[in-house]
């Protein structure tokens, strides 16, 4: 009992300042993750498959993939699915998100990232960043919410385009005309073609 109360005291002492400084916490959390990913990308000697695995291991704790999967279908569709279909959808969707993230990393290599002032909105914290690449600046907004005891990303906006929002409207389009099986089929097959590497030869092989 004494142990429990001292534990609670500890939790209280440490949790209170952490919450008060939520935005700072989110910024350093994101920065640590991105720095770790950038370090891996800059290591040219590393095997790509191994590197990709490590990148996913780094970012997985900070992305709330399950919630992203639910949000992408929304309450209009998610609750109507059986648990098996929910799981099948989530697996496919999460795989797609991760592959998409890795591919985007392949497209950029020498970017610099600026971190803006985090904006607190209730239980949510938005962390704006700017990605400076060779010839452009792209605003990226990482949207965090407080999940249990951690901050988790539930959406990312790239140049104002919300990943979840665009998936929602696409999925809504498919589901309003077809069934969940149609959508699952599309998630399995669509986009299965290979993305060209930036160098010319590999790219030509991958074009339509």
């Amino acid at each position, binding site marked *: 009992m004494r142990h429990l109360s001292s534990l609670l005291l500890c939790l209280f002492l440490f949790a209170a300042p952490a919450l008060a400084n939520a935005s700072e916490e989110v910024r350093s959390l994101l920065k640590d993750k991105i720095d770790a990913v950038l370090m891996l990308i800059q290591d040219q000697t590393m095997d790509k498959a191994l590197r990709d695995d490590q990148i996913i291991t780094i970012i997985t704790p900070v992305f709330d993939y399950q*919630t992203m999967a*639910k*949000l992408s279908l*929304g*309450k209009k569709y*998610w*609750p109507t699915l059986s*648990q098996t279909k*929910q799981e099948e959808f989530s697996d496919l969707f999460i795989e*797609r998100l991760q592959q*998409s993230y890795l*591919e*985007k990393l*392949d*497209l950029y290599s020498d970017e610099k990232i600026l971190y803006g002032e985090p904006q607190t909105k*209730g*239980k*949510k914290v938005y962390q704006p960043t700017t990605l400076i690449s*060779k*010839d452009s*600046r792209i*605003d990226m907004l990482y949207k965090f*919410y*407080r*999940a249990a005891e951690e901050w988790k990303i*539930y*959406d990312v*906006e790239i*140049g*104002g*385009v*919300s990943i*979840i*929002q*665009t*998936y*929602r*409207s*696409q*999925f*809504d*389009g*498919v589901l309003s005309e077809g069934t969940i099986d149609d*959508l699952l089929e*599309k*998630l399995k097959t*669509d*986009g299965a*073609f290979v*993305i*060209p*590497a*930036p160098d*010319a030869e590999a*790219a*030509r092989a*991958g*074009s*339509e």
Partner: protein
Amino acid sequence: MDRPTSIGGAKLSLILIVLVTSLSGCATHATVTDQPAPFVVQPETFTPQVNEDEFELEAEFEEAATEPVSDPLSGYNRVMTQVNDKLYFWMLKPVSQGYGAVVPEGVRLAVGRAFRNLLMPVRFTNNLLQLKPKRAGTELVRFVLNSTIGVLGLGDPAAESFGLQAYPEDFGQTLGHYGIGGGFHIVLPLLGPSNLRDTLGRVPDSYLDPINYIDDSKTQLAVRVYSQVNRTSLHIGEYESLKKDSVDFYTFLRDGYEQHRKQQIKD
């Protein structure tokens, strides 16, 4: 130095007419509220493992869904998206890749900066029209620095040495700034996704684009194509990647475009 008034009285008054006509419509345009409507939990319609946090997050996306993109031309738009897709894969991409294989990246980046430098009058004028004189001033200073020290805009010393970033604005954004909605979505041949407002906005902007003042129409076209090829050569793989991510590419491009423009207008 090009001054915006030097484009001629007739053209300027056209801009003003468009602006004034558009302004008259802004009073009726609904504004987006910041506060999401409180979300009512209906436990019986949900699986039990869904927690309350997710409802709060859900509300954010439902709010956005209440303003669907107006798309009466979706049939035509989908066809034109296909046409543009083929033009990209069959013409623009192979040409850009060939060009990129021959011309070093450093040169292509410099050429891209020079073309962007030339569009200063568009950014300057639209910043002024949106009553952002400081940004307009920055655009002028950038133009002077980059055209001289930066050698015809090939370099960007204004950003690199003076920390002065460009403030891209176009007439579509200016109209949006004054509350004009996008109107219906329309996919333009070659140019891709747009909407009624932004398509109309191209007209006044074109008067501020120096390339339009090249007399010989063949040269003018060649310069435009070259600019596009140069830009594409620096972004090979991005279009493909977006296409691969999507389940319904047309819907993705359409909604992505409209969301992106909203963001640009907000800045």
